[in-house]
């Protein structure tokens, strides 16, 4: 019983991070139509920056959240303005834009990863923060994992309220449904798309900060997270924000159960779920 509880809570802790990462990718793919292969690199940037800020300058990782998030946002916003908007303008069709933007994100991946390895080197970096044991319903967890879950859920909920309740959020939803019509209705479509790409990058950056509190970070850590984010996004239904949130927790639970049996197989299990999903319900949990 205790092991089961252990696995479920462990899964929720992991799921919170996955949900955050996947929500970021959903924004970038569902609204801005960029299947961003370099998503994991923003996670890496968040993690590495936090490591530097904490170990060199002694800045609390939770404060880093407020530093890395906005920096990642500006970076993402700028990249969309400089790169993806031009591609969108010159692409003959939506399908052509989807493949050319995906290829451009490879280019970003190469560039970011190489710059990061010049800046930080290829060593594995780790620090300890809030590694205090907390007793939770008979199971023991580290406080940093609980803090990470709390932050991930808080960001997710805040973002959901932003999209569901504000005027800007309405513009985002309109752009997700039909960018051309949204533009005709007076939505400044270019800045909404750039905003979404920036917000996606900010979520990845924030997730990187939270991940660095729990796991060691290194320059090539991004790719597995990109794969996980893509699987969660497909699981939740392409472009659905609540779907990604739920999908993240589903995958987290699966990951925690599989990791209990054999840690080497978690990515394999995620992929197995993805295959199953494509065979049974290719539109995802919340997809139409």
């Amino acid at each position: 019983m205790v092991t089961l509880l252990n696995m479920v809570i462990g899964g929720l802790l992991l799921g919170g991070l996955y949900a955050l990462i996947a929500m970021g990718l959903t924004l970038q793919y569902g609204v801005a139509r960029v299947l961003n292969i370099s998503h994991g690199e923003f996670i890496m940037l968040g993690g590495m920056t936090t490591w530097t800020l904490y170990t060199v300058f002694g800045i609390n990782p939770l404060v880093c959240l407020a530093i890395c998030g906005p920096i990642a946002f500006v970076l993402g916003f700028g990249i969309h303005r400089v790169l993806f908007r031009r591609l969108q303008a010159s692409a003959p069709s939506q399908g052509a834009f989807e493949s050319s933007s995906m290829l451009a994100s490879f280019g970003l991946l190469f560039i970011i990863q190489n710059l990061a390895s010049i800046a930080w080197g290829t060593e594995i970096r780790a620090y300890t923060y809030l590694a205090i044991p907390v007793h939770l319903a008979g199971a023991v967890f580290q406080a940093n994992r609980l803090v990470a879950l709390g932050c991930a859920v808080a960001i997710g909920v805040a973002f959901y309220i932003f999209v569901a309740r504000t005027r800007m959020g309405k513009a985002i939803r309109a752009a997700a449904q039909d960018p051309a019509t949204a533009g005709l209705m007076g939505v400044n479509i270019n800045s909404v798309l750039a905003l979404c790409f920036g917000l996606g990058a900010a979520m990845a950056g924030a997730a990187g900060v939270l991940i660095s509190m729990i796991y060691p970070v290194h320059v090539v850590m991004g790719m597995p997270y990109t794969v996980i984010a893509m699987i969660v996004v497909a699981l939740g239904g392409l472009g659905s924000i609540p779907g990604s949130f739920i999908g993240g927790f589903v995958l987290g639970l699966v990951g925690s159960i599989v990791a209990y049996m054999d840690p080497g197989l978690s990515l394999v299990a995620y992929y197995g779920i993805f295959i199953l999903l494509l065979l049974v319900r290719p539109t995802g949990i919340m997809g139409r």
Partner: protein
Amino acid sequence: MPGLFLIVLLLLAALPVYRPGYKVILVSSILMYVILTVSWVIFSGTTGYLSLAPAAFFGVGMYTAAVLGMALPLPVVVVLGGLASSCLAFLVGAVTLRLRGIYFAIFTFGLVEFIKNLLLWWEIERTGTRGRFVVLVDNNTIYYVMLAILVMTVLTAYFIRRSRYGLALQSIGEDEEAAVHAGINVTALKIVTFAISAVFMGAAGAIWATQLTYIDPYIAFNLNYSFMPVLMAIFGGIGQPYGPILGAAVVAYLREILITEFPYQYMLLLGIILLVAILFLPNGLVGLVERARRRAFGGQRANT
């Protein structure tokens, strides 16, 4: 164009005679990238389904060589490498090719990581080692086998393009819905073409493994083998049949130079080249060549 191809082929065939040693290894690796790129274009270039699986097929070929290399003669190993990859492509295609293109891209992207992790787990849990040694083959043999695979790949790509079958593929790329209504069995066609394109990647992997002599899951299933063919095809331009060949040859050569000259910045430079190619060369190198050709012979041709 076939005449030029024949001349280049003869020059390549004579290379080990007048330039033995390092140059042979260098050109083998360029040939390998040309094979990957041309076979990628056979499927993805025409149908528009973006496959990120070349690394998976290439890696399966490598592991075929590692597992069977000691027991069987080299040509058999190379053929089996191709067939094994083709079987994998068939399975992947059967699962994903009924769905929208973007699922296919995600699925093939994850496939490489999936196989890498599964294989790593298997090797550590069951065989107790991480990597495997591959039987050694001399450089000239590798070179000629690579060249033979290249010729078959290019011929296959050429004949597919010229046939009714190629026209059907093209129509899928332009408008899949219309292709269905024209009576084309699109799913079967996509799966078969995907499987054909994987044969050459697997065969190239099997022979390339013998040059590396040692492989492990991280070496064999490296996502760069997926990214590079896509980059090379885009850089060369997929509008003309010679575009991918040109792109692969130029970028592969550039890559060798960058790796030796700037080992710590070469990914950065490749990334910048890729971005520049996507932003400013929408039709690739071929677009430049065609424009130059039009300018040179512009007056002599009727506008069609």
